[in-house]
């Protein structure tokens, strides 16, 4: 019978670990905090900012408990299991096992979220990515909604004459302006952007584009959906570009 409490605690640890797989990063942390209170009597799992954990071991005994450094993603943090019985050799091993499983689960959840973030966000501008836009369009746009396809005129010339960093700065400036006017914006590729908008958003779009040489075409959900909606806006954008060329 003497092993019972220990086996039961291992069972509770197992139960917590099995549940980690279906959770996101914060979900894993919350589950672990709750489980710690069941597995370790008077124990408490704390998340400490790395600056506050300088001098503590990357993994191992810390004063009054057990600690481990987690490098991220999403960001570095220090886990501290405060546990009064940590001096006991068996308790130390259970604490190490608990933290080991937690680190592995956090690593998996952290990288999953990072990959999803990278797929969702355009690396240069921080706007939505093309893949994210495709997902948005697959859901379909409601009546009164549409999209504007923008093409930043003259980017190639900026790249050729002032260098690629200057070109990147121009792309980021346009993205920042779209963000400042709270528009739902995505970067398709190169110098092409898409704004998903309602008819009431058009004046705001015009204000956001002030100061930028941009050609654009707009298409509405009543006309098409998905890729066809994008193609229609693209055709209108090129029509505008050509007519501007003729005007010049």
């Amino acid at each position: 019978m003497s092993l019972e409490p220990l086996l039961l605690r291992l069972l509770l640890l197992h139960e917590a670990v099995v549940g980690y797989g279906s959770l996101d990063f914060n979900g894993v942390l919350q589950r672990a905090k709750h489980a710690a209170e069941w597995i370790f009597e008077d124990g408490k799992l704390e998340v400490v900012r790395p600056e506050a954990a300088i001098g503590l071991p990357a993994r191992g005994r810390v004063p009054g408990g057990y600690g481990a450094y987690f490098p991220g993603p999403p960001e570095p943090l220090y886990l501290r299991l405060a546990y009064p019985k940590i001096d006991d050799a068996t308790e130390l091993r259970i604490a190490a096992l608990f933290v080991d499983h937690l680190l592995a689960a956090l690593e998996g959840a952290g990288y999953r979220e990072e990959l999803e973030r990278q797929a969702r966000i355009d690396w240069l501008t921080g706007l939505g990515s093309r893949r994210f836009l495709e997902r948005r369009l697959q859901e379909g746009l409601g009546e009164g909604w549409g999209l504007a396809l923008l093409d930043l005129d003259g980017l190639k010339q900026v790249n050729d004459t002032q260098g690629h960093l200057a070109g990147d700065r121009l792309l980021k400036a346009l993205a920042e302006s779209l963000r400042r006017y709270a528009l739902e914006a995505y970067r398709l590729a190169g110098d092409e952007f898409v704004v998903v908008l309602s008819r009431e958003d058009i004046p705001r779009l015009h204000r956001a584009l002030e100061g930028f040489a941009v050609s654009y075409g707009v298409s509405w959900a009543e006309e098409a959906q998905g890729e066809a909606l994008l193609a229609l806006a693209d055709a209108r954008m090129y029509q505008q570009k050509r007519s501007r060329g003729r005007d010049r």
Partner: protein
Amino acid sequence: MEHIDQEIAEELGFGLVPNVFAYAQSSELKAALWKAFRHVVLRGLLPRTVKEMMGVLVSRARGSSYAAEVHLHALMVQGTETALLEALRRGEVPSGLPGKVQALLAFAHKAATAPDPGLLAGLRQAGLSEAEVQEAVAVVGLFALVNTWTDLLEIPVDPL
């Protein structure tokens, strides 16, 4: 019905629909029993393992065999030590367990046949939050419902 059956088989992880749910001829009843079990026992704040132990004790105290047998089997599969299983099988509260677990098992044992608001004091003293205390009450209530359901309908224990 098929959707609920699939949900039960997948979430319980046994690959089958236990008799306690399979015997329900009305889809409303089946959904009600399943959702109650799912949200009170499978999910929630208290560890599932401890809630299954509570279920065994409640069922033993009430003289009901279905839930006691099924959850003893589940605990055995999860690796619970024989001595602990035997104590639960006899309807006894094992000793020497962590404080919160001990308090929950003692509560389930007593509240199964003599529900008294005074019993909650032991749970609070052991450090359980109010939400956890409420969940413990719901576990006892749910197993009382399951006992009534399986006993009156003479639902046989699944082949384990």
